[in-house]
């Protein structure tokens, strides 16, 4: 089978499939395996039975070490650019390779959303993920004084990481009347002196050829700017942490049906309880199947790996059933509570559509 995307979901899928003895080709367009894990310097939440308390960068290494014990073929700097059924066309080192496979798992992740405002194209305005890559992977600071737009976990955690890198996060602004991410992430940056301003938006960014300042304004209950609340902040970087959307180009190319789910980040491929899409033999796992967390990506990857290995005959129906029950229980736990319940509902609806599409096809 081919697994496209070697982030947490892809690595977890590869582990389960190779544990069962399946032949796996793990493909990634980057020069390194690990996807988002390579940038996550903070300790993860979740279950202590899984990876809680371990830094994201170390989880990636741990998974790779486990994978090394099995036999897996890894193809890096490889771009999957065309799919014919289960045949992939891959561009690597300026050469085209054709790979025939029986199952495909798409674990390509998500990309950052943007918001537009006057001055948003100025150098210095960047995605929060882009800033995180610069700081944690390349060890370069994007600037000195940073305005973070968005108070979801990405905005809060990247703000923390920018402070650790020596930058001054001048404020986090959030259009909603409450903070989007976990309270403990917010408290951490408040203790570092970062004000989190809810019901605020950015009015304009300006500067001579690059960001030099930003004007922010408070919003009323109808999302309208409140007169006389404008404030200008001297900043040289503005990070956008306004959400992620699944990178569904390859599933679309494969003909997978999608549905729009605002909770899950946008258009997501329909999948059933085994992570199989509307195209038989093609699976999705991780953020590509709906934007959630690293720990849910890992469990979805496991599910896709187990289900596809089962279909290939590497795992018996009974053993697969037990494994899937275990994984689905963990997923249920991870999607519980006030932060997870919307995603749990959205995923349930998605899986319902997936199940009924399968029945219609039959």
């Amino acid at each position, binding site marked *: 089978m081919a697994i496209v995307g070697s982030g947490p979901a892809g690595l977890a899928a590869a582990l389960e499939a190779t544990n069962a003895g399946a032949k796996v080709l793990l493909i990634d367009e980057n020069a390194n395996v690990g996807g988002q894990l390579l940038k996550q310097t903070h300790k993860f939440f979740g279950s*202590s039975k899984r990876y809680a308390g371990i830094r994201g960068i170390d989880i990636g290494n741990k998974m790779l070490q486990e994978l090394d014990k099995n036999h897996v073929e890894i193809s890096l700097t490889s771009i999957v650019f065309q799919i014919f059924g289960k045949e992939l066309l891959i561009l690597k080192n300026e050469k085209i390779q054709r790979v025939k496979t029986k199952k495909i798992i798409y674990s390509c992740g998500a990309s950052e959303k943007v918001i537009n405002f006057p001055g948003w194209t100025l150098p210095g305005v960047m995605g929060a993920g882009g800033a995180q890559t610069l700081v944690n992977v390349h060890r370069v600071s994007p600037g000195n004084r940073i305005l973070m737009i968005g108070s979801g976990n990405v905005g809060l955690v990247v703000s923390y990481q920018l402070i650790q890198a020596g930058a001054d996060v001048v404020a986090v602004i959030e259009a909603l009347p409450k903070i989007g991410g976990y309270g*403990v992430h917010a408290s951490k*940056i408040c203790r570092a002196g970062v004000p989190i301003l809810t019901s605020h938006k950015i009015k304009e960014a300006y500067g001579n050829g690059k960001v030099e300042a930003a004007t922010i304004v408070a919003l009323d209950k109808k999302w309208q700017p409140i007169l006389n609340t404008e404030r200008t902040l001297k900043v040289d970087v503005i990070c956008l942490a306004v959400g992620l959307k699944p990178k569904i180009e390859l599933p679309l190319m494969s003909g997978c049906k999608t549905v729009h789910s605002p909770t899950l980040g946008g258009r997501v491929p329909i999948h059933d309880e085994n992570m199989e899409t509307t195209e038989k033999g093609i699976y999705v796992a991780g953020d590509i199947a709906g934007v959630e967390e690293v720990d849910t990506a890992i469990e979805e990857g496991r599910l896709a790996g187990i289900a596809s290995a089962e279909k290939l005959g590497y795992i018996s129906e009974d053993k697969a059933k037990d494994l899937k029950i275990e994984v689905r229980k963990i997923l249920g*736990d991870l999607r519980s*509570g006030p*932060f997870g319940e919307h995603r749990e509902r959205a995923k349930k609806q998605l899986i319902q559509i997936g199940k009924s599409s399968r029945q219609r096809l039959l």
Partner: protein
Amino acid sequence: MSKSLAKTGIPSIEELEKSPGFPSKERMMNRPVAVIECIQKIPCDPCQLVCPFGAIKVNILIALPELNEEICTGCGSCIAYCPGLAIFVVDYTFSEDNVLISFPYEYLPLPEVGSIVDATDRMCKVITKGKIVKVLERKSFDHTAVISIAVPKNFIYEVRGITISKGEGCI
């Protein structure tokens, strides 16, 4: 400014006192004890595993951590383990005038033991001066240092950090 975790990121004392991880006032003024400032239901439970005395219970993955203040010795094993950096230890019996407050710290530079520094509250407002008594770094802490600062006793509920020097990490 109204303090509430969901609106500002700063939990109010009222919100904290209601949570099962926050010890009673009587216990806090007794011997060293952990103060768990984790008041939102999120899937997370490593604090339960790390306590050598079993004083922290997380019944199901999203349950709030419950502190058994009788069993807790204030050893501080949990401080560096909490991924949310939400656990502190207070020792009211440290000296006649001062309480020793221990907190997790993941910035550079680390303060020097013996130095007098600005002690800050949950908003990073400087509210008093304190003496750095201990700076603990251990391999098992995985790059989370634990700093202990002595401040006047009346700040036991408020001091949760020190000022951070910005720009120290860059060239």
